[in-house]
């Protein structure tokens, strides 16, 4: 077992984990942060996307021992004080949700993009979520949602 310390959505956690545990297992089974979903467990679907030191990664492919000292963000951290973020609200307004199982990973990929590129082009949005599979929506409304979040933010800051 290995003792690791890291931040999840700003909160410090110290836990013991076996060398084989993935961050996805750590989040879902130890910390009960079940907003992060498992769609394949082998890095092919993007449902478990989280931010690791600000960058999107699939939590099923990162070992827990690798995040010692790191900071991770999950979908649970996207809502602040019970208020939806602009990105979350944009997903609702654009009709970008159906079954919702890909939604947390999709939002985290979009969050990673918007943080480093607040005004992405359509092509950049498509590229950022290309690793997140969605079987319901056909993606178009998701592209609209990310665009909408970006535009609203511009509107707010101007």
């Amino acid at each position: 077992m290995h003792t690791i310390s890291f931040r999840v959505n700003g909160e410090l956690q110290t836990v013991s984990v076996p060398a084989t545990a993935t961050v996805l297992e750590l989040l879902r089974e130890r910390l009960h942060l079940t907003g992060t979903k498992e769609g394949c467990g082998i890095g092919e679907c993007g449902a478990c996307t989280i931010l690791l030191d600000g960058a999107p990664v699939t939590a099923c492919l990162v070992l827990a021992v690798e995040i010692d000292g790191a900071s991770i963000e999950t979908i649970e951290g996207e809502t602040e004080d019970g208020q939806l973020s602009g990105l979350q609200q944009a997903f609702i307004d654009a009709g970008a949700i159906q079954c919702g199982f890909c939604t947390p990973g999709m939002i985290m990929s979009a969050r990673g993009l918007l943080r480093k590129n607040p005004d992405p082009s359509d092509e950049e949005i498509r590229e950022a979520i290309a690793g997140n599979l969605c079987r319901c929506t056909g993606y178009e409304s998701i592209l609209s949602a990310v665009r909408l979040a970006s535009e609203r933010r511009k509107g707010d800051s101007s």
Partner: protein
Amino acid sequence: MPSQRPKAVRRGLRVNAEGFALEANRGRSCEVSDLKYVGKGVSRSDGVDKVSGVARYTHDLIVPGMLHAAVVTSPHASARIVRIKTDAAAAVPGVRAILTGDGLCYRLGLYMQDKCILAREVVRYQGEAVVAVAADTVDVARAACRLIDVEYETIDATLDPRDAMQSGAHLVHPDLGLYEHMQGVFFPKPGTNIAHHQKIRKGAFDAAFRAADVALTASFYNPPVQHVPLETHAAIAQVLPGDRVEIWTSSQSPYTVRHLMSAAFGLPHANIRVHVPYVGGGFGGKAGLGLEPLAYVLSRAAGGRPVKVVATREEEFNTLASRQGLHSTIEIGCTSGGKIEALKSTYIWDAGAYADYGVNIGRAAAYSGAGPYEIANCWIDSFVVYTNKVFGTAYRGFGHLEVLWGVERAMDMVARKLEMDPAAFRRLNLLKEGDTTITGEPFTSGHGSPIGCLDAAAQAIDWETPSEKPAEPHKIRGKGIAMLHKAPAMPTYTSCAVVIKLDEDGAADILVSGVDYGQGTYTVLRQIAAEELKIPIEHAHVTWECDTAFSPYDWQTVASRFAYMGGNAVIEAAADCLRQIREVAAQALEASPEEIVCEDAAAFVRGKPETGIPYRELALGYTFPNGNSIGGPVIGHGRFIATGLTHLDQETGQGLPAQYWTYGAHAVEVEVDTETGEIEILKIATAIDAGKVLNPKLVVGQVVGGVIQGLGSALWEGFRFDENGRFLNPSFVDYKIPTAKDLPLEMEQIFLENPQPGGPYGARGVAEHPMISVPSAIGNALFDALGIEFTTLPLSYETILLKTLEAHAEKE
């Protein structure tokens, strides 16, 4: 070049003028302009839970004391199980139960009881579950599975359903004659691999075909494909003292799960409680029974500890059900003027190892199997055939994408033989008022307008104008069009119920057991309830988790019938609530119930809104100033049952199978790179006669999602097997589904609104339809571009390139 992609265009609704007359709707006359919520783009009511990660799916649930399961699957497509050694696995610390098929003498299934929980004596496909382990953790269960030694003796396999139909073929189910099945609806042929033979006979095909001026015979193939719900199948079962069981499952069918569990295990219905929390996609794959029986027997074997069974992605592909493959042969005879006189189809479905649901696909796709055309002389044979491959089940479109791949390609081929424009040829033959369908159903104005859909889709891609020639010499463009149609495929007695209970504050809780696994039906039911009860939409709630202990009955959430049937039941339940409100308000206001009007969440005497009593003072009963009380909690009940449907005649297929039909068309323009075989969808326009759009935002979402799923079937998806029946591509690396980078450059959705008699506000179902005929339209566009007839799906870049090179070589 990707950077040149224009923004995807969404024109949203384009509604025809006739749609605004709603006189057909259950005797009520309400103008669209009167509607506050129905027809409006209300956002999904589950959105907040889903964007914030608090929506709980079966995958996320923990029941105290819960064990986890893993299975050993068969490496062979067909083999006898000689012996199974489990000693080493049983010795692993943390293993609590190990089960094999021995002792699990159950036959399961919805329409045909042909399935086992675990393979018994023989395995019938590679990937079939043979041994199951329940352990403290999933890692322990998997480690134990690796220690289990199963000895097999391989036997003959039958892999191609066309061979499997021949006499002397290896029988996948030698006991077929003993299996229970729905009598009078399905007709298995014991001693063969044919699980069901559906016949449709209308007129005199042979004579009409012989007399035809122009004739065509063509064959087509669709491979099996996977639904790919993002949440794989999952179920938790806990056996409780007193022969009871509690189940949590990712299912489309809480009551069907309960009923089939009752039938299989001999438990009273009330002893089985099924919970369905949020479901991460279904598309038909989670209809009927899934992993619930396995979770149940494991819990029983583990002394009643709850057991969670979650399919891995590979098991979702290779162990759980898929969409059946299909071999089609279609013969069409026409007059020289282009009227279809005769059509014959032979559909051979690759059911795989089990056909418990597949038999109904073979039935439903047969009665739709000539397309939405008027055909005087029709002959269809639809055979559902067992093979030693992963088995099929319902998948969005329920066989219609598959049969219309052939039919709609064949229509283009015939049109060309006639030297007619494919749209004009269709227009001449599409069903019109006064025609009859191939099962003898009269086509009326209440069916909607197939021709209107054709014309709207054609216009959207400027059909009359040939595609432009791109600047790059190796690129070429083409246009294609295809029709679609489908009716709900369901038993003649399909029913559902709705309960609405008013809260203390006058808000409405709507209880249903149809499942909203993404379609948006709950939001539509809220809109209807708010409209009918005259309350703000914010006061109409649907309880999200279905629970057979509390939620009223619904058959299954399949067949694009939930908004239609559930919507009607909500209208009736709301009327029941209003009746109760009026009775109490009448006493309180010293008037007759007939004089009481309900508006804005209050009841008042007609013409005297100032007398209004808010619902919150009536919802639990009314209390007079002196303390006397009357009435009581308002709880309304509504129901709906399919009416007038009949079984199809065994020999002729004549009868009334459809509660309603939904028609539509796709028109596409494609650009092909002849050097690489890559194709770009420049535009796809979809026109559907929805009867009435209940929520434009949600219906656009359904159409876009369905079209992209159809694009997957068209261009990329298909199971591959080796010569021994081993499944070669059970992962997202080897089985590609569309991603955000695969979208057409432009998509347009057009809705016609010719009202459906009996539909809620004139609506009919549209959920499955957008997926159907997407491959056909693309196949037709590819012919227009390349002059090559594609008959096999998927239309992979590789196939397109090879066929293009072949065509060039033939020319030279």
